[in-house]
């Protein structure tokens, strides 16, 4: 398929555009869904798409197509060049300095399983796993929805000023959602799942555990209701703890800073949280999700401190934003983040507090990107002295991002090493629940 990239680049040159960046994506996916033990849906996808960025005298256009016959592609690219010419020039736009490109000298990242190449729906080995994850032996079960998805992603990059690279990765996910008969008409629902980069790393024992965990997480939700409004110690369970970091990452983006729509504007190098807010982004760890040696623009990635004991260590500045803001480019965004853990388990932490609320999911809400004010719907469990006394739903937490991270008082040791972001359970003091 690389030939298609060279051909497209030549067509772009013939249309009068010398500077271009092309990405050709090839994705193969298999999706198999069981509903109550029977096959509900099987889907096989094998698709190609071409993303083109054109630069003409400070003008920048983005183009995307999956139509590759010569005539159509030539016409599409000619039109793309014409559209780009009609834009106003912006001196910040352009290909990045070739010195910033990844040079191709990194060791294998071990995130590609060739076994996926030959898999189709008809010869797939996952059916036994799905069957195992679907077997729920429990009371009150209304439905069991089990899904298996695998994805092989391959991308070829070609930039007119010298960058050319190929990367590929694989992953597969097995998950089960269970709904049970609850109080009144309610049908509480919850689930569990696991993602791996290599197919053989999903095992039958793991599949059975996924089903059992999904059921256990659901059945404990029967009888959810709000607790008395007030200020509580909030423990956010690891799988959803990243939800509270997303507003920080959005506010660190160069575009938000340039548009004066970031509550972290002017905070670089300053303390924005407690000393436990300590995190790196490391895209170079073999065998992890998000591992990559370069960003979409070809710029080489590097391990980077995001928060250093509560101090904001970097913004996410790509080359155009660096030119606009007069700042050195850093990175386009996060890849594989790791928050420094403690040695305490979640169970230990829950026992430490006379009273706390364990948050297991967020239900809607938002954070104002300019001010950092947030209001999120939450559900979870009310704990006293390490014992769950009440499942909770129908409540909101309200506050400000610049305040709540200063009230981070504990972190756990339970981040899932197979996730893209390794965030352990987090404990915040004095959170307003309504």
């Amino acid at each position: 398929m690389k030939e298609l990239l060279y051909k497209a680049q030549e067509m772009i040159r013939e249309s009068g555009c010398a500077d271009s960046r092309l990405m050709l994506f090839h994705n193969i996916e298999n999706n198999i869904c069981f509903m109550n033990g029977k096959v509900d849906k099987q889907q096989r996808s094998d698709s190609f798409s071409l993303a083109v960025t054109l630069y003409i005298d400070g003008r920048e256009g983005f183009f995307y197509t999956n139509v590759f016959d010569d005539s159509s592609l030539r016409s599409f690219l000619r039109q793309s060049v014409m559209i780009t010419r009609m834009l106003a020039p912006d001196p910040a736009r352009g290909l990045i300095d070739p010195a910033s490109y990844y040079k191709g000298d990194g060791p294998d990242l071990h995130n590609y399983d060739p076994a996926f190449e030959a898999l189709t729906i008809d010869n797939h080995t996952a059916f036994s796993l799905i069957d195992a994850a679907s077997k729920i032996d429990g009371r009150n079960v209304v439905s069991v929805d089990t899904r298996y998805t695998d994805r092989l992603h391959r991308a070829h990059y070609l930039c007119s000023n010298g960058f050319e690279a190929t990367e590929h990765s694989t992953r597969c996910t097995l998950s089960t959602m269970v709904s049970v008969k609850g109080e009144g008409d309610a049908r509480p629902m919850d689930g569990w799942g696991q993602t791996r980069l290599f197919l053989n790393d999903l095992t039958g024992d793991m599949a059975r555990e996924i089903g059992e965990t999904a059921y256990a997480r659901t059945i404990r939700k029967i009888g959810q209701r709000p607790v008395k409004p007030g200020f509580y110690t909030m423990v956010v369970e690891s799988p959803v703890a990243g939800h509270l970091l997303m507003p920080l990452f959005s506010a660190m983006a160069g575009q938000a800073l340039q548009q004066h729509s970031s509550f972290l504007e002017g905070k670089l190098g300053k303390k924005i949280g407690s000393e436990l807010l300590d995190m790196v982004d490391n895209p170079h760890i073999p065998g992890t999700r998000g591992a990559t040696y370069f960003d979409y623009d070809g710029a080489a990635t590097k391990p980077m401190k995001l928060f250093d004991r509560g101090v904001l260590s970097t913004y996410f500045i790509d080359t155009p934003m660096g030119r606009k803001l007069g700042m050195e480019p850093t990175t386009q965004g996060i890849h594989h983040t790791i928050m420094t853990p403690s040695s305490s388990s979640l169970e230990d932490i829950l026992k430490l507090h006379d009273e706390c609320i364990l948050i297991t999911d967020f239900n809607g809400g938002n954070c104002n990107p300019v001010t950092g004010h947030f209001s999120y719907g939450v559900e979870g469990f009310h704990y006293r002295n390490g014992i769950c006394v009440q499942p909770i739903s129908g409540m909101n937490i309200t506050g400000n991002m610049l305040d709540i991270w200063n009230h981070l008082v504990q972190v756990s040791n339970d981040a899932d090493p197979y996730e893209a972001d390794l965030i352990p359970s987090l404990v915040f003091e004095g959170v307003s629940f309504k």
Partner: protein
Amino acid sequence: MNQDNRYTEFYAERDEMQSLELSDGIVSQASHTLQQGVGKREIEDESTRYSYTMDERMPDFFLEGHPHLCDARQSVHGGGVDTDFSFLLGGEDGKSSCLHMLEAVAYSLDPRVVKVKAVVLHSCKDVSILTSESDEAVHDHRLRTALMLNVVLEQDGRHEMGFASEQLQMGAEFVTDERIRRIAERAVAQADHLFRAVTPKGGDLPVVMAAGASGILLHEAIGHAFEADFNRKNMSIFSDKMGQSVCRPNISIVDDGTLSLSSGSFACDDEGIKSQCTYLVRDGRLESYLHDRISARHYGVKPTGNGRRQSFRHVPVPRMTNTYMLAGDATKDDIISSVKHGIYAESFTNGQVQIGAGDFTFFLKTGFLIEDGHLTQPIRDVNIIGNGPSALADISMVGNDLEMALAAGFCGKAGQQIPVGQGIPTVLVDKLTVGGV
């Protein structure tokens, strides 16, 4: 479905979209997308097999096992209409583009405006559907144009952001001076509101939902729970409620895919079923779920034209089109003056629902406190939670001012984003949980 419970369908699509973005005073970014493909869906009983090819000519291997459809393949095509996007850029100097006009109006409205970002988007999707139940394909041509505006205002070193958008199924005629002014006024007014607004005291409160944008209440509180796939799988909190009284008898709620120009409208859905107006609730009673072909067969009813998909890469599932409540008798003033202490909810940013538990949320961007029957303190940035059946039963007053929201609305479900419309008259919900200090 035929007598052996087998059904085959081909869905061909050609989707072309262009957008332009103005930032820092210049239109310096453009995008253009062209995609096409054909999806093949085979259903046996309620089990689905799906695959697709990006070759719209449908090669022989794709038709394997369906010789009766080979002759009909020529009638399936993904359009191929050359879309005219030239109106997006305006005149040759580019200065007369709708984006520059939006920017100029925004700056003229308030001297505190320091940043303007505007986007115009125009798309054209042609679809053709051929099924094993007919020898002829059905076709639909779907236009969509949207304008979006972000403004940042600065006052005493503090910044606030306002956003407004409109979207309709129109071409170049969508861009008018009146529309541009209205979008700019709404965006600037929202940012201005936020300078004066406070986070209210939270708790369980009566909430007056403003006409138009508050259609999000219907979408999240009941719309998703009425989508028949959730009910077929017994997962919805409304699964056992068909025919039952679910709210006051003066309330009727419809899903209408036939509304002229509205974002969620179409001539036929993505299974080839003609668009329809379906009563979800008529005079307080649950009358119908929203069906695709699979759920309609399961329930023994006709499909309601709600089988929708994001693209040829996806299977259709039951989705809303344009969902709204019919007008009642009360005036807006009657409704507000009936509330001793509560919230007037005016604009929103997002919402979601937990189908099984029925708990829904939407995020209030701007609104007002209601004190002794009057709008008083501007408020901002709170999440509102309710439970679908309870909230529906708690709607105690319905206004006579039905309004469809014009904002660009998209709905996500099963990993698929589709355009939808929504509307509502001013209504009073006696109790919702308001997040606050």
